């Protein structure tokens, strides 16, 4: 009998289906991989298991018993443990305190915490999982990210009194771990499996999945596609399963070829935590940057935007030396930026549209560079709004009241309000609905056609292949390849991201 059996799990958000029918089962004592591209429905499925999101329909059985997981406490009682990056940990408390967080600490005379017993119990727990290098008395925040992950697992292993852990769910646990730390994590996971528990392992990293998982389930477009033994499957089969057949062209066509002259050039540019990068972006070119999560793409953009200093190297913008010391310098020089997190980095939600779009260009739009001319700002906001096909009541509408797609268009309107020579885009269509996505793609094409250089960082490989002229592949904060997008397909690009050159 499977430990966990899911049948026909469906879920739609506001009419948009996220899961269209997922079937999957996890046996006791196995490490099971859950795979799929971004947006395939992995995180929705996990949230349903965790009791954070309720499914529209689902048959969930644990040890054969039908269960209704309607809140996180139920999930915990049923023995499900979720290891998130920032979940239930207090960096300032010690390792031992964190492991037993949520439980009653052992007491002396019923009043004072018995620290010795607490630390001993923590040591024992860590030992049982084969973790011997962590001192339970150290503050959690002083540990490496990998060790913090191990402490989280130890804490989940303990859980609440009387509810033994049956299934550990780890979502991209190695995204920010070093190779050594990942190895330690895998040892602990094998230890857990040896104790009879199961692990649901969500990852993009095929090599890891091949090395530690027993079985894998692939989901695509909200459906489970296949489940199989890892031993019977090859790396390339998994990639093909994940990508599926090619979706129809969702990208506006290219308009002419990029010009010959360069809009931007980086020469031996040393970004934070990385090696030196050199690349050219021609005027009218869309230069894509691909890579797994957090391999330095963001730091490249931040360096180009003057927000992170470059340790060495040089940049040129439209032929002239370009040395931005702050975002203000970058805006002045004609570099526009669409940050990844539009709500926390891109917009001032409480202010009107026109105040957002004019903010980087305020001096230019004001009298004697100091006195506001709201009418001029609003006129410019209206013009920019038309350019980006913004749907809003008017320039004075608060940004908070707009939909996600329209908010993103405000970010674009802001980036394009100056004389832009280079446009930096960080995941520009993340969390944007399909209609607005196409508008944004069209806009990016139009901007390129006007002669801007565009740098497009995206984790959405079809998006990169559909939009970019050239694609740079990043690994470990270095560019490993720069290739013509026309020469690439998704499978090859994914393999390059994973560091496999054949395939």
């Amino acid at each position, binding site marked *: 009998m499977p430990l966990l059996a899911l049948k026909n799990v469906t879920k739609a958000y506001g009419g948009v289906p996220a899961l269209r029918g997922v079937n999957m089962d996890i046996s006791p004592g196995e490490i099971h991989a859950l795979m799929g591209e971004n947006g395939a429905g992995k995180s929705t499925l996990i949230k349903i298991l965790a009791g954070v999101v309720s499914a529209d329909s689902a048959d969930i059985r644990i040890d054969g018993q039908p269960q209704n997981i309607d809140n996180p406490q139920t999930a915990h009682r049923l023995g499900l443990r979720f290891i998130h990056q920032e979940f239930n940990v207090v960096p300032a408390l010690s390792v031992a305190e964190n492991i037993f967080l949520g439980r009653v600490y052992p007491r002396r005379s019923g009043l004072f915490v018995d620290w010795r017993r607490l630390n001993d119990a923590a040591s024992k727990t860590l030992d049982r999982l084969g973790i011997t290098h962590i001192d339970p008395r150290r503050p959690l925040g002083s540990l490496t990210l990998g060790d913090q992950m191990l402490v989280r697992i130890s804490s989940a292993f303990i859980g609440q009194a009387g509810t033994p852990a049956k299934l550990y769910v780890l979502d991209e646990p190695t995204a920010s771990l070093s190779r050594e730390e990942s190895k330690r994590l895998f040892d602990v996971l094998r230890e857990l499996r040896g104790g009879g528990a199961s692990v649901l392992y969500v990852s993009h990293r095929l090599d890891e999945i091949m090395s530690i998982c027993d079985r894998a389930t692939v989901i695509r477009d909200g459906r489970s596609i296949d489940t199989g033994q890892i031993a019977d499957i090859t790396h390339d089969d998994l990639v093909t399963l994940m990508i599926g057949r090619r979706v129809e062209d969702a990208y506006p066509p290219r308009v002419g070829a990029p010009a010959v002259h360069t809009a931007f050039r980086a020469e031996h540019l040393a970004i934070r935590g990385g090696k030196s990068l050199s690349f050219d972006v021609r005027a009218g070119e869309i230069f894509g940057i691909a890579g797994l999560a957090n391999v330095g793409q963001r730091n490249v953009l931040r360096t180009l935007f003057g*927000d992170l200093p470059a340790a060495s190297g040089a940049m040129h913008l439209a032929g002239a030396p370009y040395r931005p010391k702050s*975002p203000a310098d970058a805006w002045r020089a004609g570099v526009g930026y669409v940050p990844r997190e539009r709500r926390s980095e891109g917009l001032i*939600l409480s*202010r009107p549209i026109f105040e957002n779009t004019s*903010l980087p260009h305020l001096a230019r739009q004001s009298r004697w560079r100091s*006195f*506001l001319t709201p009418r001029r700002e609003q006129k410019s906001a209206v013009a920019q709004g038309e350019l980006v096909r913004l749907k809003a009541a008017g320039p004075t509408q608060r940004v908070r009241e707009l939909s996600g797609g329209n908010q993103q268009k405000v970010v674009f309107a802001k980036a394009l309000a100056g004389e832009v020579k280079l446009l930096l885009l960080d995941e520009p269509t993340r969390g944007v609905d399909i209609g607005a996505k196409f508008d944004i793609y069209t806009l990016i094409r139009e901007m390129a056609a006007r002669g801007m250089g565009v740098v497009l960082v995206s984790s959405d490989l079809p998006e990169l292949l559909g939009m970019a002229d050239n694609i740079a592949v990043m690994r470990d904060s270095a560019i490993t390849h720069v290739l013509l997008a026309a020469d690439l397909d998704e499978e090859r690009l994914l393999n390059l991201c994973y560091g496999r050159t054949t395939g």
Partner: protein
Amino acid sequence: MRNVFSIFATVAPQVNIMLTLLRRYGTLIGFAAILLFFWISLPDTFMTARNWLNISQQMSMLIVVAAGMTIVMVMGDFDLSVGSMASLAGIAVAVLFTVDLPIWAAVSLALMVGLVGGAINGVLISFIGILPFVATLATLTMLSGLAFVVSGGKTISGRVIPEGFSSFARGGLSLGEWGGVAITLPNLTLVAIVIVALVWVLLEQTTFGRRLYAIGGNIEAAHLSGVAVRKLKLIAFALTGSTAALAGIMYASRVASANPTQGSSLMLNAIAGVFLGSTFSEHGEPRVLGTILGVLILGILDNGLTQLSVDSYIRQILVGGIIILAVSTSSLTKHLRS
């Protein structure tokens, strides 16, 4: 087509509008009620030009400090050191008189004390990264101690204060006669009006003010939009320090003396005034004209209750209660609406 749903469709917006009105105008309605109450209870003395000019003069220092406080509160920060800064500036101007400095020089130097003190707050907060609460709490103590050290703990008064300095506060701009009484707009009120006008222009009409509001709305987005967050914070705190110093000098002129604690009540009242005032604005952000209304509410309460011979401790309790009432009405209706 009158069914259950159309009733919902017509009722809900009305409730919504009422809540919006209550949120936006609740404080204003309360203000009017307070005015009406005093007008009726004190028919002969309250609603007179003389009383109002008196209120305006009494409140001019607080208005100046509150206007300055608005500058930093727009960014979501605040400055606890304004009270002791005012005391120190008062002491500074008086001490400078004892060394026979001319009035203009003493006043300018005392204002410089405010500018420098405020800039120190700004450096601590924006360049060193200390929370405004902690940084200005520390400078509050230091400035207060400094005021005692410089003055020797004594009140400076008498002949060392030049006649020209203390007569400024007594003088004013004649507005002619009204009902047989000569009406004069006090100089201190005039100063307060000028400062409010300057702060209004700064916050509402310049790129500087717009950027401060952007910092208050989302500091990271403002930074990425090219706003020089650190520099602007430093300037804002320096301006707030200067207004506090100006208020201290005004106070010294009014009482023709200076003692090291005379500004201490200003800080809490200024912050209360900004909070009360922010309930007037549509989205609850501090605006300088709202601040002035907020400060006026506090001043009128004080004036009316004093005339009704209400004990000053009871007054404190009432003032605190009114602040809670105004701010909670504003935030409760906001919750109900969303």
